[in-house]
């Protein structure tokens, strides 16, 4: 069998062509060819788009450092005498209590979501139950139910249980808000654990606990980080439940921001300082963990 079959011959031909093409591309790269100029143009364009889309956020932070009079000018000022007085006013205006409430509600609800959703995702991937697909859709359908439709009984029950304006009420409500997407995300990461590795562990007599802590957890750790980040973003930023069910006792950051607007008035520099402080934790967390997000949000769409 020395002659190549037609299929193999075609493949060999393709490989040769690909290699030739790669060689030509590499030499192109050294030249100041049209393609290279074109590439530069795209890079500049990408940078421009990124700056335009980021600009509102940049402007918010910039305005926060302005004295109030510099916030209202035509044309808008980029060069001004920066001040920290707006931040100081916001910090003395009672932002610490809502910060604590937001941090508590976000941390506890995110931890609860992970604890509840991880076993569920495990049962839908590593050792799947029979009707795993229906179960996944059940969770996704729940996410589609508008929370507004349930706000009336939630409000009345919370009122009767004296849970209105209480951190725990928000914790209880944020868990199901994030649970469906957490199950989906964790499942997609668990699917990436090679079956061979699990089999090997089992042949070696690993029990469920060893399998989880020694084999699965190290592999899916980035996935857990990505899932936690998504839960943190949505809990920290949640507004509808927070504004309707909390007030002075357990108000979170978004509620504080609205209250700040009504008590302090529409002063841009001060509002921007308050907004910047409200957004900062989540923006920093998102920046740090952004790489995981790219993989995590695909939810194992195609496997």
């Amino acid at each position, binding site marked *: 069998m020395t002659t190549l079959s037609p299929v193999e011959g075609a493949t060999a031909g393709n490989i040769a062509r*690909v290699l030739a*093409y*790669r060689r030509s591309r590499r030499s192109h790269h050294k030249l100041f060819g049209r393609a290279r100029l074109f*590439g530069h143009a*795209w*890079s500049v*364009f*990408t*940078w421009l*788009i990124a700056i335009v*889309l*980021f600009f509102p*956020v940049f*402007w*918010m932070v910039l305005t926060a450092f302005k004295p109030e009079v510099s916030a209202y*000018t035509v044309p*808008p000022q980029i060069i001004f005498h920066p001040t920290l007085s707006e931040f100081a006013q916001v910090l003395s205006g009672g932002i610490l209590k809502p910060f604590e409430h937001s941090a508590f509600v976000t941390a506890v609800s995110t931890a609860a979501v992970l604890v*509840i*959703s991880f076993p569920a995702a495990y049962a839908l*991937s590593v*050792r*799947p*139950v029979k009707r795993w697909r229906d179960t996944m*859709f059940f969770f996704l*359908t*729940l996410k*589609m*139910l508008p*929370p*507004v*439709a349930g706000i*009336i*009984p939630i409000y*009345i*029950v919370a009122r009767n249980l004296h849970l209105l304006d209480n951190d725990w009420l928000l914790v*209880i409500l944020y868990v*199901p808000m994030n649970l469906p*997407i957490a199950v989906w995300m964790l499942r997609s990461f668990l*699917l990436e*654990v090679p*079956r061979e590795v699990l089999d090997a562990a089992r042949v070696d007599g690993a029990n469920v606990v060893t399998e989880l802590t020694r084999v699965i957890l190290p592999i899916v750790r980035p996935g857990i980080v990505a899932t936690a980040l998504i839960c943190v973003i949505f809990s*920290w*930023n949640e507004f509808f439940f927070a504004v*309707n069910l909390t007030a002075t006792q357990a108000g979170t950051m*978004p509620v504080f*921001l609205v209250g700040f607007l009504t008590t302090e008035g*529409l002063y*841009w520099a001060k*509002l*921007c300082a308050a*907004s910047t402080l*409200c957004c900062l934790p989540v*923006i920093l967390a*998102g*920046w740090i963990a952004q790489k995981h997000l790219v993989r995590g*949000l695909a939810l*194992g*769409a*195609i*496997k």
Partner: protein
Amino acid sequence: MGDTVTAPSRSTVERIRHVLDRRREGDSGGAGRRRWVRRLPLLPAFVYVIVVTQVPFIATIWYSFRSWNLLIPGSNHFTGLRSYQEVFADPTFLIAVINTVELTASAVIIAMLVGIGLAMLLNREFFGRGVVRTLLITPFLVMPVASALLWKTTMYDPLYGLLDFVLSPFGIHHVAWLSTFPMPAIVTILAWEWAPFMMLIVLAGLQSESLEVLEAAKVDGASTVQTFTRLTFPHIRPYVQLGVLLGSVYIIQAFGEIFMDTAGGPGTATTNLPYYLYEQVFNAYNVGVGAAAGVIVLIGTEIVAIFALRLVSSLIAGTAMIG
């Protein structure tokens, strides 16, 4: 020949797995018990979501048959279907339905188109790619209430807003964007917030595309447009569908932006269903009508959701279980 060789060996692997699984679960309780052991990890999630999400919905149905003004003690009594009649007779309700569809569809479509464009721009090597990605995901991380405030003041303000400043060379002066073009203004904010989310999902799709296939296409002389329409788009299609689905789920519930920037107005121009329900309950204290509207919204959403899920069903239909 090949088939007869591989088939038994594959089933042998299956058998070994089966034996291992049985050994794992003690093999004493039989098939029924094993199935329950497998289901057990799902139980906490099931119980929790059913108690916290399904019970309120059942309660909503009950309240929808009653008339109850929260401010009037003793006003709680059975009225049958009268609340439903009131909702359907309320012209604002129909407007809210139309507004919700318009708002969600336009914001999701614009965010997705921008997201696809950004993802394609990011999916190549260039100077400062990491920084650009960092800049681009930021709008998604900003608290919606804060971005609503930011756009309302520093962007849309008719006197000192940046939009006015940028457009002034084109002869556009002192436009009160939020009252003149309320819907496009809100859609812009939502699309700005969600385009990064779409970008991240599409980027994951683009990065999983095989470079060999793309190079082969180039070798065979395919144009950029051909490569996109014949190869790249079919490949990222499931990711686009997923993004549209998830984006819709969140944007249909948009509340903060409307609450902060337009309060549903001017008039009812930007009143979507969440804001309509909010007004019924927390401004009019009308539990019966609010609950009836909630039930109608729920049934409507479920109908849309079933169609949407059928779409996604094809996405994970190809999802092979491990092994």
